[in-house]
Structures are given as structure tokens and as C-alpha cells.
């Protein structure tokens, strides 16, 4: 089968989970015997996007140099449609497209389309986070477009007024997201897709009425490529390491919750350390260590050093790649009971879940785990096994993407 992948924000090496997800999906389907080709622009004026070198990719790609300031949705379609038509794919797989996605779907509607929605881009036009007033937003662009349009303008007020327009805002205004026409186009584009792929059950529930087929497909990690050091074989340290990995400076990731739990624990015990990736050390406590921004390789070293991995996000993480990475490294994961995280971690088996934002509950769980190293080791082994069986890319392609392709083309 010939599968065309379209992604407006593709970069390799990846700058985020969405890019890594696309790369492994394309590569996985290529290895499964399908003919694949990536259609992704390279922007000449965007530092935020590292872009990609076609020669560095293991699969063929069709790059076109674009200038974000001058690129409109129509301009993108004018490039994309002839390029895809010339290749004659059997299926089009749409990746990250942010605000231009409905236009691209419209332009390629003569093919069976599978559309992958990252973040909550299909529900929240503001920033794709679906997070408002310190909780998951109950509105969504499909059902309450007028509320969401107002929320978007109010939220981006300062940026819209700025003399230097950031790329996200250019994308927003170029695609005419705030016009009533865009909402109609958006809803129609969901109906035109043969299938939509989302990250978790909540995201699925909210678009079930709009798209013929909606599948929850998790992201994955290359579990087999990761060196595994079981917790019980790890050299003993004076202090146990509780690790929080990822973009810890983002308040939505909940580093403050972990620090509050740590300061509670530190009142009566000193046998632990909290390590976080990132440069910021706002707490200046002896039990808190900022390890600096880490590349993929160094992060693996940190996981090996860790005894417990914590993912204290306060927003509904669509997936929670860090939790899966922790599991793949064979460490028990303590995560917020929210978004995709609650679907990844099995309490008592591969880790524990706590109420988002509840540092007291997190402290209790950490205390119990610090006191029971045997239990932690057992959970770590089980976590590694779960990651290998359910979140390895090979498994994800085989169990989710291949049946979906068959369904879409039959």
C-alpha cells in the first residue's frame, strides 16, 4: 500500500513528541512492507523548527522550502495537492497541521484520509491544551465555537498586538481561524476523514459524533533499544533518587506539586533526592537537584540512576510519553490521575496514581515507596514488561496502525 504522510511541523531530530510519533509511525509502516513518503515543508524563517534533512531520514520525503510569514493555507494546498497527486497514494495520513489542517484535508479529500490529532488540537483552538482556570476545560471548539473563539482572542491579546508576530499567531490569522467559516470547514473536515486518531479516551469521546471512525492509539518508545538495569541490580546510593523528566519549567508539568511533596517529606526524612531535568532550581533545597537540559542519551542515564519516576502534570496530558519512558527503563511511575497518564499507569502494578495537584497524596505515596524497595523493584519489572508488550513501536504499528489501514481501505 502507498501511504502519503503530510506534516506541516515535521522536524528531525524531533523537537517534541509529535515529531517523534510521526517518525516512528512512518518508519514502522515502512518496515511492515508499505511504501511510504513524507510530504513536509521546510521553513526558511523559523528557528523554532529545526527542519529536517531528507538524506538523514530512512524513508523518502518531499520537502519544499516555505516562508512562514508568506505562507497561507491556500499556498500550502497549492503545493501539496499536485505533489501528492503525482505520487498517487492509496491512503493519506495527516500529521501535525495545526490551524491549516482543515484546508489540507479539504484539498486531499479525494483520498481516504487518516488524521492524527496531537495535543487537543481538534478541541482547543487556543493552544491545544484544553486547560482553563486550572482544570480541564469543559468547552470545545466543536460544540462551543463562539466561546472558544473569544477565549482564543483574549488569551493571545498581547501576542496579537505585538510588533513581532510569532509563528503560531501568523498561523492563526493566516488560516482565518477566528472567522465563522473556519468552524464549518473544521467540522466538515472531520467528517471527510475516514478515521481520526487521538491519544486518549477523553479526546475520543468528544469527537465520536463528528468522525466516522475514531481510534485511540498511544505513542510509543523503542523499548528494546533501551538498556535495562533492573532496580534490584542498581548500585545502592545513600539517597534514593526521585526523578521528574521532561519540560519541567512548564507550570503545567507540575514541578511545584512535586517540590511541595518533597518539602513535606524532607521534614522527617533525608534518604531521598528529587532530580529534575532543566536548568531552573527555584527551590535551593539540599534535596532538590536541577540536572540541566538533557538530550535523549543523557535522559536514559538519569532513568538508570532513578529509583522512582514521577509525572506530576496538572493538565490532562494527552499521552504522557515521560511515563512510558520511565516504564521502559524499568522504574515504577507515580503519575497524576489525569488525561492519558491514568491510562498508562496501572496503580499497584506498574506504579501509582494520585489526584492531580495533590502534593499531600503524592508525599504519602512516595513515602510508602521509599519504605518498600522490594515493592518498587517488583513494580519496576512489571513496568518494563508492560512497556515492552504494549508501548514498543513495533507492537503499536502491528496492533493499531495495520488493522486501521485495512479498515480504512476496505
Amino acid at each position, binding site marked *: 500500500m502507498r501511504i502519503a504522510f503530510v506534516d506541516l511541523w515535521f522536524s528531525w531530530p524531533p523537537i517534541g513528541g509529535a515529531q517523534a510519533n510521526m517518525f516512528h509511525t512512518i518508519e514502522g509502516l515502512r518496515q511492515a512492507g508499505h511504501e511510504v513518503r513524507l510530504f513536509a515543508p521546510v521553513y526558511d524563517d*523559523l528557528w523554532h523548527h529545526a527542519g529536517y534533512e531528507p538524506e538523514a531520514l530512512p524513508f523518502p520525503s518531499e520537502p519544499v522550502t516555505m516562508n512562514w510569514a508568506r505562507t497561507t493555507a491556500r499556498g500550502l494546498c497549492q503545493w501539496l495537492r499536485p505533489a501528492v497527486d503525482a505520487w498517487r497514494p492509496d491512503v493519506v495520513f495527516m500529521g501535525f497541521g495545526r490551524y491549516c489542517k482543515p484546508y489540507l484535508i479539504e484539498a486531499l479529500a479525494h483520498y481516504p484520509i487518516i488524521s492524527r490529532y496531537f495535543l487537543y488540537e481538534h478541541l482547543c483552538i487556543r493552544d491545544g491544551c484544553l486547560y482553563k482556570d486550572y482544570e480541564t476545560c469543559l468547552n470545545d471548539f466543536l460544540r462551543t465555537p463562539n466561546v472558544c*473563539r473569544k477565549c482564543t482572542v483574549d*488569551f493571545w491579546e498581547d501576542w496579537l*498586538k*505585538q510588533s513581532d*508576530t510569532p509563528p503560531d499567531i501568523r498561523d492563526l490569522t493566516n488560516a482565518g481561524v*477566528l*472567522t465563522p467559516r473556519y468552524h464549518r470547514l473544521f467540522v466538515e473536515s472531520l467528517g471527510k476523514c475516514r478515521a481520526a486518531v487521538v491519544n486518549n479516551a477523553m479526546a475520543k469521546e468528544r469527537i465520536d459524533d463528528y468522525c466516522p471512525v475514531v481510534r485511540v492509539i498511544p505513542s510509543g518508545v523503542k523499548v528494546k533499544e533501551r538498556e535495562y538495569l533492573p532496580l534490584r541490580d542498581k548500585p545502592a546510593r545513600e539517597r534514593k533518587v526521585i526523578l521528574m523528566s521532561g519540560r519541567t519549567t512548564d507550570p503545567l508539568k507540575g514541578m511545584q506539586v512535586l517540590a511541595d511533596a518533597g518539602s513535606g517529606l524532607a521534614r522527617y526524612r533525608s534518604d531521598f533526592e528529587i532530580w529534575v531535568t532543566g536548568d531552573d532550581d527555584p527551590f535551593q533545597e539540599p534535596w532538590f537537584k536541577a540536572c540541566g537540559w538533557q538530550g535523549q542519551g543523557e535522559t536514559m542515564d538519569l532513568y538508570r540512576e532513578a529509583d522512582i519516576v514521577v509525572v506530576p502534570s496538572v493538565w490532562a496530558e494527552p499521552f504522557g510519553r515521560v511515563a512510558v519512558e520511565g516504564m521502559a527503563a524499568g522504574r515504577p511511575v507515580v503519575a497524576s490521575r489525569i488525561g492519558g497518564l491514568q491510562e498508562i499507569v496501572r496503580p499497584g502494578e506498574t506504579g501509582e496514581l494520585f489526584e492531580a495537584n495533590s502534593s499531600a497524596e503524592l508525599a504519602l505515596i512516595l513515602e510508602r515507596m521509599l519504605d518498600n524497595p522490594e515493592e518498587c523493584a517488583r513494580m519496576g519489572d512489571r513496568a518494563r514488561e508492560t512497556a515492552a508488550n504494549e508501548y514498543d513501536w513495533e507492537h503499536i504499528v502491528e496492533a493499531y496502525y495495520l488493522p486501521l489501514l485495512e479498515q480504512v481501505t476496505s
Partner: protein
Amino acid sequence: MSGALRICAFRSQGWGYATRLHHLRRRYPDARLVVMIPKGETVSEQEAAYADEVLEQPHETYSIRKPGKLWDLARTLREARLDLFVVMYPSPRLRLVAGLSGARRAECWSYQNLIIALPTRLLPAMAVLGWRIVQGQLRFWRCWLTTRLRRVPMPGEVDKMEARGLRMPRR
């Protein structure tokens, strides 16, 4: 006073400051590199490796609407007696700051990531900035009016947050 070129690298919002310092050091190996950071921020280890001198900006941010802050910055920069002033982007605001710096010339990284000369004459810089601010205001008000006057026809739509008596905080 030594004869080495005094270069000030002005740190503003955005990524890649350390990478830019690296480029700068390679381009001017013998120059004295003054790293200028916003008030209250620190220099990372990587940045410190390239810096001969660290200077703190008098304020965190600058805007043409707050001339007092700009004046403080201009004074600090002029006291540093710079030969070359380097900013991270060719934005109108940074162009104005470069104009105020009193340096003999200014450079920046273009959108294609190349080091280019930055015009430092004050009046054109202020005119460009003023026009861009007007454009930004027009952009915002156009969007604001679009969302208020042109509604998507959705009978029975209720703002669930409003119904629960919650309001969105302004950011």
C-alpha cells in the same frame, strides 16, 4: 583602555542565546564579549564560557510605551562604551534598542540565521516600530470584532464555564 573590540550581546526573549554567543566568539575571537542579561536572570554555564564580562540590564523588558525604562537602558549601554552591539533578531524593538546603545555599529541574526548589519538610526527605527504597533493593534481589534460580531450559528450554545459561575483570568 585596551584596543580590543568591545561587543555587547544583548539577551532578549527567544531561544538559542548560547549558540549565538558561540557564533559571535568564532566570528570575533579577539574581541571583549560583554553578555547583557535581563534583570534578575542568571548566566548559564555554557553562556559564561563565552563571556568576558556580564552586565545586567536595568529592567526585565522594554517597550516604547515606557520611555523611562528605555532611557535607563540607553544610559547603561552608553556607559559600557561599545563598539558593536549585537541583538538576537532583526525585530523593530531590538532595532530601537540598538539605536539607543550608542555603539558605532550593530548586528543581528537574520531570519535565515545569518549575521547581518542592523541599521541603527533612531528615527527610522522608531517609525518602523510605531507602524508595527499600529498593525498589531489593528490585527487584535479585527480579531476581537470578528469574534464578537460574526458568530458561528450554534443554537443552544452555552458557555459551560460561565454557567458554573467561573471567569477566565486575564493573562
